[in-house]
C-alpha cells in the first residue's frame, strides 16, 4: 500500500477538493466547481464520490460502500477494496458502524447519526440541465432563483399522467434556496435528506461539481399544494425479513412469472433476519 499516497490522491488535490467541500457546506445546495482528477475508475462508476471520499477519509474512519443498496456488487466491492488498500482503514458492511459511507443510488434504511458522513455519487449535478442546455444560463437561473421552468415540468407531468412522473433523482430545494438534484436515489429516500443529522456530500467527477447538504438543513421535494409529494409504497413486506416501509427491489425468480420483493438495503435486511431467528430463511 505504500506505493500510493494515503487515499490515492496527492495532498494538494485533496486540499483543493476540501476547499470546494467547505464552500459547498457553506452554501447548501450550491454546485461548487472543482478540478476533478483522473481516477483509476471509469466515469459513471463514482469518480466524483471517490474523490470526495479520498479527501475526507482519515485513518480512524470506518468505511462502507453501497451500490443500489447492496454491499456486495462489483462497484461496491471495488471501491471498498480500493480504499482498504490505499488507506488501510477498517471497512464494514454495517451502516451503524461506519463513520464514512460512499453510496450510489440509495440512502441506508438505518437512520444516520451526527458522527457520520454520507458521500453520494452524482452523474449529472445540474437539476435544470434537461430544461436549459446552456451552462451559463443555468448558473444565471440559480443565481436569480429562477426555477419557474422546473415547475412547468411538474405541471406537465401532472397534466399528462395525473402525478409527477419523476421517480428517482427527484428535484429538491435546499434550505429554501437552491434547487438541487439529490443524485439518482429513489424519491423514497428524499425525506431522509431533510434535516439529516449526518453531513451529506455530493460529488460529480465528470461534471466537476461538488455540493452538500449540511446537517439539519431543511430539504424540500418540489410539489404542488394540491398534488403533494409522495413516496413509493408496496403492497407486501420484504419476502426475506418481513420489513415494511422500506424500499423494495423486485426480483424475478423463475421464467414462469414468479417474482419476489426484497429489501434493497442488504445490510438492513440481513441484520433483521439475524435478529429474528424465526424469520423466513433465504
Amino acid at each position, binding site marked *: 500500500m505504500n506505493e500510493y499516497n494515503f487515499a490515492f490522491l496527492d495532498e494538494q488535490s485533496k486540499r483543493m477538493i476540501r476547499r470546494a467541500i467547505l464552500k459547498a457546506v457553506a452554501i447548501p445546495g450550491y454546485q461548487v466547481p472543482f478540478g476533478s482528477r483522473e481516477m483509476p475508475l471509469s466515469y459513471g462508476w463514482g469518480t466524483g464520490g471517490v474523490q470526495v471520499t479520498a479527501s475526507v477519509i482519515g485513518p480512524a474512519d470506518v468505511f462502507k460502500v453501497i451500490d443500489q443498496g447492496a454491499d456486495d456488487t462489483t462497484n461496491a466491492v471495488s471501491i471498498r477494496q480500493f480504499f482498504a488498500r490505499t488507506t488501510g482503514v477498517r471497512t464494514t458492511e454495517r451502516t451503524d458502524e461506519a463513520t464514512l459511507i460512499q453510496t450510489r443510488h440509495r440512502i441506508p434504511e438505518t437512520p444516520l447519526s451526527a458522527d457520520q458522513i454520507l458521500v453520494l455519487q452524482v452523474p449529472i449535478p445540474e437539476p435544470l440541465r434537461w430544461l436549459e442546455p446552456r451552462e451559463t444560463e443555468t448558473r*444565471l437561473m440559480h443565481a436569480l432563483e429562477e426555477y*419557474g421552468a422546473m415547475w*412547468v415540468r411538474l*405541471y*406537465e407531468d401532472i397534466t*399528462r399522467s395525473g402525478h409527477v412522473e419523476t421517480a428517482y433523482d427527484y428535484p429538491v430545494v435546499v434550505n429554501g434556496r437552491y434547487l438541487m438534484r439529490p443524485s439518482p436515489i429513489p424519491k423514497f429516500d428524499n425525506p431522509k435528506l431533510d434535516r439529516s443529522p449526518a453531513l451529506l456530500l455530493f460529488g460529480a467527477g465528470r461534471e466537476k461539481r461538488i455540493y452538500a447538504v449540511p446537517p439539519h438543513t431543511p430539504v424540500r421535494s418540489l410539489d*404542488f399544494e394540491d398534488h403533494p409529494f409522495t413516496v413509493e409504497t408496496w403492497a407486501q413486506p420484504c419476502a426475506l425479513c418481513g420489513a415494511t416501509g422500506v424500499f423494495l427491489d423486485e426480483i424475478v425468480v423463475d421464467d414462469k412469472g414468479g417474482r419476489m420483493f426484497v429489501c434493497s438495503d442488504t445490510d438492513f435486511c440481513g441484520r433483521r433476519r439475524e435478529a429474528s431467528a424465526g424469520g423466513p430463511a433465504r
Partner: protein
Amino acid sequence: MSVADADRPLLGVRGLTHDYGGRVGCLDIGFDLWPGEVLGVVGESGSGKTTLLGCLSGRLVPAAGIVEFLTREGPVVDVLRLSETERRRLARTDWGMVHQNPRDGLRMNVTAGANVGERLMAVGARHYGQIRAAALEWLGHVEIATDRVDDLPDTFSGGMQQRLQIARNLVTRPQLVLMDEPTGGLDVSVQARLLDLLRSLVAELGLSAIVVTHDLAVTRLLTHRLLVLRRGEVVESGLTDQVLDDPQHAYTQLLVSSVLHP
C-alpha cells in the same frame, strides 16, 4: 380609455441611443406612453424598430438614455439601471412581450396550459388546480377552445399560436405589453381576427402597449399614437389618424403612399 385622467406617464423614454459598432441602431429617441395608450412604431426594415424594442425590454443595453417605468407599487424605476433580478421580475409580472414568431415566445414542447401557467409558477403559484383554472380562463379570453388546453402548441395554427402567446403574457395582468410585428406572417383574415382580439383586450384590461410593425393598416386599427422611425431616428410622431391622413415628413408621405390598395 383613461388617458385623460392619468397624471403621469407609464413609460418615459429620453435620449435612447444604441449603436452596433458605429452603425446607428436608434438615435436619441424620446416619447411618453400613458396608461391605457397604444403606441405604434413604424418604419421600413432596418429603421431601428426592433432595436428600440430590444432596448426597452432590456434585451439590448443601450449606449445612452433613460427608460422610466411607473411600477404598479408606485415608485418610478429606471429600467436600464435595474439589477438583473429586478428587471427579470418586472419582465414576467408587469411587462409582456409578444414576438413576431410565436416559437420565440412559447415553449413548444409543453402543453398550452403549461405555457399560460409558466409566468404564474415563476412568480410563486404552487396550486396546480388554480394554475390550470387560470390557464383555462385565459385560453377563453383569447378565443382558444378550452379543450385544447392539454395540446402542444405545435398542433396549433399560426393564428392560435400567436393568441396563445398573448394569453401567456397577459396571465399576470401586465401594465405594458411590447409587441414585435404581432400580425406578421399571418394571412389577412387571421390578422383581422387577431387585431380585433387585441383591440378588445387592450380596452378591457386598460393595457398600454407598444406595437412595432411595418404594416400601416395594423397601426390604423390598433394604435392611438404613432412614431415614424427612419435610420434610427424619429422623423414624425402624432396621433395615428393625423399622421396617416396628413403626413408631414417626406419619408412618412412615401410610406403612406406606398401602401397597396387592392
